């Protein structure tokens, strides 16, 4: 018969177990400054004091080798980063830059900040307005560097490139623009092999032409190819709708002239949703579209399975990596649903594209600043354009001689014609950024998905869009009232721009 465990042995066993658990949970005595992943339980921390900046614009060789940690999530743009890092390191011996892939910036950055372990350089994260409202600055004050005025004046339009309420707060600047002032980078890509094969000679310009092209490809191919697809699993179903109808309605549904939501008043919102419903009802959408992500859809497009997809200009480099022989494609501007163009894409002053920041707790501010400046030079901008990832804030870098892809050459020609600087309440009154507006339930992206899935019929659209407008209006009113009750100096008129012409640039003046 087995002996029972006596109490003494039980206590010994329990003690051993507990001791090993305690040892296993012990933290290292000296945490590594390169540690990328923060712990799950954040602790409050004191902000690091701003060190005295050096005078020269170039970082002198540091006494000891410095490794800068950079958090980003770029994949197709990654080679550009790698090239810049290599060139920077050659020009700045003693400084190395290490990229760390981080896809959850919104969660990871606040946790890292709470532990005082922000990366030296990062992208994304909580918006600057939120950092300003909470007084918790993840981003480093760039204007604290002695050579910041020289840096600022190197930009083509300092007046709109550095704007209070956008990338400058209380006179301090936290990020600089790097990409061209284009609002949206997403368009419809056309597989010209399929268009040629099925005799489509005219590129679609309206929703009807788009549908006709999709029908031709789907029917004439007998199911071997389909007219349209989107990487729906990526969650970008609204890409076709909101971004491709931008010449016929205002993306976001807000008319800045009256600060009125017009999803139900402008018939083109419903019009493009009807187009989506038609694509689905007639079986013109690739069957796998509903569950394949953006990268999978890109591959199917290059493989000739679908004639038209939505995507960003990052697709170009994506195909260079996965389908280097595939080049017979082009892009088209947003569709026109009415009889003429009424709107454009709108961008605002201040930062553009994906902004970069220095971490406010960086232990190597001067070296990080040198890296930051490097990425915001004309030369880096030229390499950015040459890499096919986008356009530069410096117009000289957007010269067609730097662009090898025909698609990019076309893009450079017509895209600037479709972008305008739109009204900016934050510039007029920075306090407008303190409103916390709740979103509608469901929002326009969800409604798009509902139409696609057949959950919302075309006949229900007027009612659904009217409810959307109602919720948006009500939520804004509540947010405004809450802010005013909290003592914020903001009023409804700060959001109204009656003199705005949607087809022209609008430069908002502070306090005007």
């Amino acid at each position: 018969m087995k002996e029972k465990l006596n109490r003494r042995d039980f206590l010994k066993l329990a003690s051993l177990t507990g001791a090993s658990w305690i040892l296993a949970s012990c933290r290292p005595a000296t945490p590594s400054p390169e540690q990328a992943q923060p712990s799950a339980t954040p602790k409050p921390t004191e902000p690091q004091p701003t060190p005295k900046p050096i005078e020269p614009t170039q970082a002198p060789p540091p006494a000891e080798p410095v490794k800068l940690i950079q958090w980003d999530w770029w994949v197709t743009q990654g080679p550009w980063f790698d090239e810049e890092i290599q060139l920077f390191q050659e020009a700045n011996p003693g400084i190395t830059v290490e990229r760390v892939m981080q896809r959850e910036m919104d969660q990871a950055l606040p946790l890292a900040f709470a532990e005082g372990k922000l990366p030296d350089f990062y992208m994304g994260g909580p918006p600057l307005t939120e950092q300003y409202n909470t007084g918790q600055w993840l981003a480093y004050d760039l204007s604290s560097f002695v050579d910041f005025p020289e840096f600022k004046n190197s930009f083509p339009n300092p007046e709109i490139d550095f704007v209070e309420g956008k990338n400058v707060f209380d006179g301090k600047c936290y990020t600089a623009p790097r990409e061209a002032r284009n609002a949206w980078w997403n368009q419809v890509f056309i597989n010209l092999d399929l268009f040629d094969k099925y005799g489509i000679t005219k590129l679609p310009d309206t929703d009807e032409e788009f549908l006709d092209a999709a029908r031709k490809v789907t029917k004439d191919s007998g199911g071997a190819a389909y007219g349209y697809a989107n990487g729906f699993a990526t969650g970008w179903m609204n890409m076709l709708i909101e971004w491709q109808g931008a010449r016929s309605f205002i993306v976001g549904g807000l008319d800045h002239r009256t600060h009125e939501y017009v999803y139900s008043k402008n018939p083109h919102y419903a019009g493009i949703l009807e187009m989506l419903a038609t694509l689905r009802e007639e079986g013109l959408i690739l069957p796998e579209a509903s569950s394949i992500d953006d990268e999978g859809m890109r591959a199917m497009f290059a493989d000739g399975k679908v004639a038209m997809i939505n995507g960003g200009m990052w697709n170009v480099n994506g195909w260079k990596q996965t389908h280097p022989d595939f080049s017979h494609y082009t892009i088209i501007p947003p569709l026109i649903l009415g009889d003429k163009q009424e709107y454009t894409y709108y961008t605002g002053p201040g930062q553009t594209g994906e902004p970069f920041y220095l971490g406010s707790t960086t232990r190597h501010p001067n070296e990080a600043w040198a890296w930051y400046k490097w990425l915001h030079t004309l030369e880096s901008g030229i390499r950015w354009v040459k890499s096919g990832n986008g356009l530069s804030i410096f117009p000289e870098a957007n010269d067609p001689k730097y662009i090898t892809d025909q698609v990019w050459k076309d893009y450079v020609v017509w895209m600037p014609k479709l972008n305008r600087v739109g009204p900016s309440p934050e510039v007029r009154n920075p306090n407008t950024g303190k409103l916390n507006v709740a979103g509608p339930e469901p929002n326009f992206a969800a409604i798009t998905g509902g139409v696609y899935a057949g959950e919302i019929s075309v006949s229900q659209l007027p009612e659904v869009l009217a409810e959307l407008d109602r919720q948006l209006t009500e939520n804004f009113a509540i947010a405004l009232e809450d802010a005013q009750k909290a003592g914020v100096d903001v009023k409804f008129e700060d959001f109204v721009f009656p003199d705005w012409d949607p087809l022209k640039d609008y430069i908002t003046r502070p306090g005007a």
Partner: protein
Amino acid sequence: MAVASISPSTGGLVPEAQPRLQKPKLPLWKQIISSRWSYVFIAPWLIGTAVFGWYPMLSSIRYTLYNWTGFGEPTQFVGLRHFIKVATSPIFWRSVGNAVRYTVVLVPIQLSLALILAIILNNPRLRFSAIFRAAFFIPAICSVIVLAVPVRYLVLNLNRAVPQVFVDIGLFNRSLGFLQDSRYALSVITAFGIWQSFGYNLVFFLAALQSVPVELYEAATVDGAGRLAKLWHITIPLIRPVGVLILLLALLGSMRVFESVLALTDGGPFFATEVPMTYIYHYAFRPVRGMGGSINLGFASAAALFYSILLLGLTAGQVIVVRWSRARRRELGLSQ
């Protein structure tokens, strides 16, 4: 001195039962001291539960009264607005309805399947029963996400395999497939749920079956009882208390389904498979998809608390039923 009485049935003397000598009851503090080592050994787990369970739960009650993105401290007090919004949100109640539909279908099928297989596997003469047991239990111990992702692609690939006749009569839409069609999406998730988690209940039923005394079956055989009679009159009554507990755990677990929905459909299409846990998750971490404009942990906390209160009713029912099942086992003379 013992006192005897006359038995009415036999006429014989029956001694009265001796009063049992009772120990004097100790004060509470002495009872605690006498059991101190028990408290010492449960202390680590108690502390862990308090730090990682109770503290976050109680903290989140405060956040329900604020708009908060999770960054910095919450400053925008909104009172009970979030609770009102949750209580009047059609999408929240649709998610509750989806969870109920999921539960109502999954639980009976899963428990029946688990019980039947447990009865089969309980047969000592069944060869390779250990292999079958392991095979059925493996999905239950795997990560739900790890299982759901390949299942998702398997279901996707069925799009083109569906015969055209079903497409022509409108039963199937190739552009939507099974996971983007609200007629089928929840069914796919339910089927996945049945397969993935029935192994747990199988093991519980197996344990319950093995606690039934074999002599009862032997006695029933002697009395000429068949298999169905044994099942109905012996097996089911004796495993009923455990079965009820399993049922209630299955109900609670199903109402909190999350990973499979997230991995297979993310609550789509258009909230057709949205369940309360994904509703809360979307407000807390992924607002862009279909609701809201930005992360709002305050609202997500309110929705979580609201739903917890709803489930509390179910838990209260569980407590009552467990007490009943214990009383029943006492009546049957079985151990607790």
